[in-house]
């Protein structure tokens, strides 16, 4: 690898304040060219604000950031010519049709009329929007808007793409389509910075993940490293016959080789699970001993648990977080 090539993103100590609230409090990131970097955090953690600063949409109050070696404050035009931004709130023109949107953006990027027309047609085809090409966006579904938004970001083949919560609020099928599209872009060589609230999404798409909370990066590593730091899945059992809790406990402890916790009143047992695929065998063993199970759940660590483990507090959606995300929008 050529060491003289600057990383796609190099941010050091970025700070952004809105009034008294500090939305981003010293975020540092390095995103190597050609990788997918996930920024994971709850609502209001400062993800959108960070992306907006890196994309020259907000001026940082402190710190520095470079995109392919270009300073985001001093060389905004250079940065803008290298990035595509797809926001959480689709940034396309509601009053125009899909084709008109793509034509206008293409023309603004300096394409000739015929090139713009060809490019628009190509992108509509690629993003499965041909049927809706001449309809005003007002009649579009959320998923279609998001796809058009992404298509608009790709007109100039930007080497760096910011995808700010690209699947928040989408139904599972549309989310899967969006993931496919993102994978294809990466395969074609784009560098992607992706923000998400979903551990699963970061896990699926990102090479490296930064966990961000209350404006600070609190953990940084590959998906596996992050998961290892969080712990494993948990098995929860509820028995029909509460008197057999103790017997079940020793059976599970013996089979899994771990401590099993009991909530005696409810007849519930909880055990950490390194490999969830052993669950069927456990159930078979319980049946062999004639123990009837009323309820069973195997759950992966949720984002809540990630946060609880790393920060010592939950995702805190209600109070400060919501207030901050309001600020972000009104300033935007």
């Amino acid at each position, binding site marked *: 690898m050529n060491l003289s090539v600057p990383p796609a993103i190099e941010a050091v100590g970025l700070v952004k304040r809105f009034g008294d609230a500090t939305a981003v409090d010293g975020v540092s990131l390095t995103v190597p060219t050609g990788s997918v970097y996930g920024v994971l955090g709850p609502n209001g953690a400062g993800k959108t604000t960070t992306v907006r600063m890196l994309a020259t949409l907000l001026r940082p109050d402190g710190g520095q950031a470079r995109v392919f070696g270009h300073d985001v404050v001093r060389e905004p035009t*250079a940065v803008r010519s*290298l990035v595509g*931004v797809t926001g959480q709130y689709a*940034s396309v*023109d509601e*009053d125009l049709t899909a084709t008109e949107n793509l034509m206008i953006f293409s*023309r*603004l990027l300096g394409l000739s009329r015929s090139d713009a027309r060809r490019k628009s047609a190509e992108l509509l085809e690629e993003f499965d929007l041909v049927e809706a090409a001449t309809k005003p966006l007002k009649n579009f579904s959320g998923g279609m808007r998001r796809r058009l938004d992404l298509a608009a970001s790709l007109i*100039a083949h930007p080497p760096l793409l910011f995808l700010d919560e690209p699947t928040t609020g989408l139904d599972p099928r549309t989310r899967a389509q969006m993931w496919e599209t993102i994978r294809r872009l990466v395969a074609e060589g784009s560098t992607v910075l992706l923000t998400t609230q979903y551990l699963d999404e970061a896990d699926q798409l990102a090479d490296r993940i930064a966990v961000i909370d209350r404006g600070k990066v609190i953990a940084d590593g590959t998906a596996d490293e992050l998961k290892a730091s969080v712990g494993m899945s948990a098995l929860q059992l509820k028995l029909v016959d509460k008197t057999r809790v103790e017997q079940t406990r020793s059976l599970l402890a013996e089979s899994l080789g771990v401590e099993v916790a009991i909530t005696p009143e409810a007849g519930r047992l909880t055990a950490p699970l390194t490999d969830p695929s052993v669950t069927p065998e456990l159930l078979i063993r319980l049946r062999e001993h004639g123990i009837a199970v009323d309820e069973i759940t195997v759950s992966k660590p949720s984002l809540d648990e990630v946060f609880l483990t790393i920060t010592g507090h939950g995702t805190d959606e209600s109070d400060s977080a919501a207030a901050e995300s309001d600020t972000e929008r009104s300033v935007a």
Partner: protein
Amino acid sequence: MTTATLVPDTRSTHPGPPPAARSISLSETVAQSITMAHRGLIKLKHNPEQLFDVVIQPLIFTVMFTYIFGGAISGDVKSYLPIIIPGILVQTVITASIVTGTQLREDMDKGVFDRFKSLPIARISPLAGALLSDMVRYFIATTITFAMGLAMGYRPGGGVIGVVTAGLLVMVCAFAISWIFALMGVLMNKASSVQGISMLILFPLTFMSNAFVPSHTMPGWMQAFVNVNPVSHLVTAVRDLANDGHFGIQVVWALLGAAIIVAVMAPLTVRTYMRKT
């Protein structure tokens, strides 16, 4: 047109950093502003109800003011028409330019302005484009006002050339004045406050002028203002052109005033717009 802003799709084979645009030339700025103006026209095509005010207002105001003031000021309607039609024209078109500021504010609150900001385009182009496409509104208002006047018996002595030149002058000046309201649009947080403040500016400017009533009937202190009011100069210039076909010093004053407004307000508006990001 250059394609310097396009990054060639060669990053997998090229080890170096991708080439970046350095600056935006004047010709690119103009092209981008025209594209943004085109966007404004497409929006009007999809929402023709936005032209309601520039169609209805000239119809109502021309009839109303002419018949209310005609007898009192000039003795009869026919001899009042050469005074009032240029006055109504200027007032209507300047009022139409307020909407530019309000709509700009509403537009800027939409997500699409984020994309405009993230594109490597001149910062002035989304603003200039919006203002340019509103020239269509001024054209409609101008045409309807003159048509109403003609229907009511107005026979402009300047002929076709005089009337067309007068119409163009009003449109150019309204474009210049719309930069004032664009600044309001960029400064204020709500479209309704833009509307309110702009009305406060507009009313004294249009009524404390010679647009409806000869200024010598007013008290001295007010005449002092009326005589320096740029709206008075514009109204006089329009009367000179439309009624006499005379291209006089007032036309020069009106154009000079328009140029000064753009020279001051456009950079101020763009700077405010950039600072707000």
